[in-house]
């Protein structure tokens, strides 16, 4: 980190290097800038949404080295040398929707879409950890994210469907490599 002192509002600026959605990024920003603001304003990744700025709603959830974190509760400078995955980075390299993204489309797991990125990142990490969840586990997995539109019924269904799609695709790719 290189420090470049600014005297204006007493903001110290730092250069931060991190990997976002697989790409190395370097950004100079005030040390008090939250990770969500840095992603949205400095890196132009506006898919991450800010719903409460106090870590309760989960809309701003991103993956830090694969683990869900609230990007509103984390300073961007703390992400130095880490891997950050946002909703934009969930899409498959070939442009296909990820299992979780596809599941939310299939199951009508979103309405206004504002909380959705936080659910998508959370669920993506969850089905990696638990590829075969029960309905209770699926509900528990999204238990820390608020949604005001869907009443969660179709979100829980989406979690289960995401796990199914992940398995289907794993089978497809195994079959593909056998052929």
């Amino acid at each position, binding site marked *: 980190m290189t420090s470049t002192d600014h005297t*204006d509002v007493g903001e110290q600026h730092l250069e931060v290097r991190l990997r976002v959605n697989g790409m190395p990024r370097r950004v100079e920003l005030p040390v008090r800038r939250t990770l969500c603001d840095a992603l*949205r304003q400095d890196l132009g990744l506006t898919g991450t949404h800010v719903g*409460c700025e*106090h870590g309760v709603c989960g809309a701003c959830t991103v993956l830090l080295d694969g683990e869900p974190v609230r990007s509103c509760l984390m300073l961007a400078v703390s992400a130095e040398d880490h891997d950050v995955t*946002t909703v934009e980075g969930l899409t498959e390299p070939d442009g296909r929707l990820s299992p979780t993204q596809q599941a939310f489309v299939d199951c009508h797991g979103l309405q206004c879409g*504002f909380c959705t990125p936080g659910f998508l990142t959370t669920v993506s990490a969850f089905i990696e950890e638990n590829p075969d969840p029960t309905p209770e586990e699926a509900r*528990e997995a999204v238990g820390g994210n608020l949604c*005001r539109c869907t009443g*969660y019924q179709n979100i829980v269904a989406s979690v289960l469907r995401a796990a199914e799609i992940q398995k289907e695709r794993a089978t497809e790719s195994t079959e593909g490599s056998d052929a």
Partner: protein
Amino acid sequence: MSTRSFGEPVKRVEDPRLVTGKGRYVDDIGDDRTLHAAFVRTPHARARIRDIDPYDAYELEGVVAVYTWDDLSGPTAEPLPLLIPHPDLTHPRTGYALAKDAVNHVGEAVAMVIARDRYVAEDAAALVKVDYEVLKPVVGLRKAAAAEELVYDDIPGNAAAVSTQAYGDAASAVAEAPHRLTFEWDIERSACMPMEGKGVHARWDAHEEKLTLWTATQTSTGVRGAVSAKLGLELTQVDVVTPDVGGGFGVKIVHPWPEEIMVPWAAIRLGRDVKWTEDRREHFVSSAHERAQLLTVQVGFDDDGRVLGLEVDILHDHGAYIPYGLIVPINASTQLLGPYRPGAYRVTFTSLYTNTVLVTPYRGAGRPQGVYAMERTMDRIAQYLGKDRLDVRAANFIQPEDFPVDFGLMFQDGRPLRYDSGNYPALAEKLRTLVGWDEFEKIRADARAEGRQVGIGLGFYVEGTGPGPYEGGHVQVLTSGKVKVATGITSQGQGHQTAFAQIVATELGVPFSDVIVTTGDTRRFGYSVGTFASRGAVMSGSAIALAARKVKERTLRLAADALEADPGDLEIVEGMVQVKGDPSTAVGIGTVAVLSNPLRYAFDEASKAATQFGGGPVDYAKPPVAPGEKPGLDETDYYSPPYSTFAAGAHAVIVETDPETAEISILKYAVVHDCGKMINPRIVEGQIHGGVAQGVGGALYEIMAYDEAGQLANASFMDFLMPYASEVPTSIDIDHLETPSPLNPLGIKGAGEAGVIPTSAAIAAAIEDAEGIPIVRMPISPSELFDLRRAAAYPEPLVNTMPGTESVRWVDPASVLPEHSSAATPAASTESEARA
């Protein structure tokens, strides 16, 4: 994809964009040059402003400007508009874009700071010194009604309005009824609480003298009108664009919010883009709340439970200002009637000022309160008479052959309360089956044998949806064959792009995937009212259908010339116009669009056919654009109904209450819903799911914890308990009835608010049924239930009056009015006989 997609549960076209981070919400707009606004908000509920000192704030580097009311002039300095005047609204008061001299609720905007980023803007806002003379606030309905302290010295009794509506002689009908009961029902505040707060981004083009405003609103045309008036611009100088909006639920129909005036005002002054994004605490203390009402009911009924007379008095808390008029209490007082028609009815509401955040519609908009009072009254009538709660309702239902039903009352749209269609007995029978009403006593007995306590509750409602005055739609066939559709209403997650594409695909006969819909953009469609009162599908859907029919008619007429056929012999199949049953004759509608616009200059291969030497046979007696025709294949039409259309539904819920901890759990939730013809059942069910979740929040968790000083003590998601997945029912059983509306071309009724309306009534009834303790005040927490248990002054374990049981019947003695007639009070013994 099929063109007959109307009625199919097709997947939403919005979703691929929204799940990949490609949504565009208002805070996503802007760049490094954009300036950021932050607002200084009063920490006092009621105070006079002695002085505002902005100098410390100005000294901070990065601060561009600090503005107060003193900087405003002309219409900008005048009070914000009273959006919906009403003859009974005798003492209206609205706020200012920035407070002038006084503040009337915590969170009211006092000054605006503009800075290079939001962090600096907030630093500076904290440095603005405001000298307040703090006054004693009025908080709570009972205090407001007592009027020992006034919110405004010149408004006696704190009352903005006292309004009465009636049919028949309700007082006499109650007085002369065989049985009479009286109750007070009490509903607490909640709020819409969309996941995205409000937000505004303003851009002023000094060369074109044109303002473009992106705002998270439910009415882009409303904001356009208000902003142009408040900023002294012509309407044509203002465009309002509503991008993706992260939920509304009513709060974003209010306009102009102070920020919708101040942000563009600053952008014009500074010649720079200015944006403001509401944070969560700001949303709690400066956006609108709803729900708080006290409803006093006097009811007179006969031995069958038929309501002969009903008198209702409502105290309504509208907060510090009343820009949205009397819509909420009018809804409560008219929609209270639900699927019933009492012999005579009188309702009086008093709309009261308090030093709290203003109250404007939140999904349901007064209906949950009215329905709560009516449905709970039905429960108590049943209990008093020892009758089945469904039977008492059935005795009061308006019958299918009674429609249309005109109550002789005025609805919130200023037109008669007139039900267009419905089938309430059928709803009740479907609900009976869906929830297992007749089997519940076995469930209760089984639970009891395990030491568990369960109860069942009901709630019926009728909802006036799709109020006017009008909406419009524009449908245009492009030369590519794609169909572009625009309507003025905005979208906040309802799937309008999908549902309207289904309508156009079906009406026009084109593939669903070829229809592209734009909503809420005054650049595309300038005449509109807005998205509220479950009106989007009914109003814009109908207008778009009418426009699509006009396009179809012209398409067939133009194609008939080209095909030398009679328009009546043509059809459109998958976007191709052909002689009925003969695909070999097919011409794409894109080609028809080419032919519809006679050209001098070709721009591509297809357009050559429309040039003067490039086409087919020409009738030289006619001009290229025939009289009555116009170039281009597009049409606009409007839909303006004489009355609202009335959707209906019924909910039933089974709850379990923990005998020790008083924890309340929902075991089963059932909804029967009638919104007429469904455009997309998947979307309708999603709306119901979301509404029920908000209803559960309002019934069990959500309050606005104002203290006596007018401080909102729970203004965060840490303390305002919005349901997570763990708080909602694990499943919601839904059944549909489709009673078409005769009022619109598609037979549809609104569905957006349905899920939330009877939820508190049903859950309260279920808890009451489980506990045998009167439940009056909602929401109810486990600790409140625990306290009610302890306070219950009943000698015996008090349980329900469901058929087939020998349980003890209770009636709150205080609620029983003196018997008037000689009709005997039904005794427990006769009740048992009746049940035998």
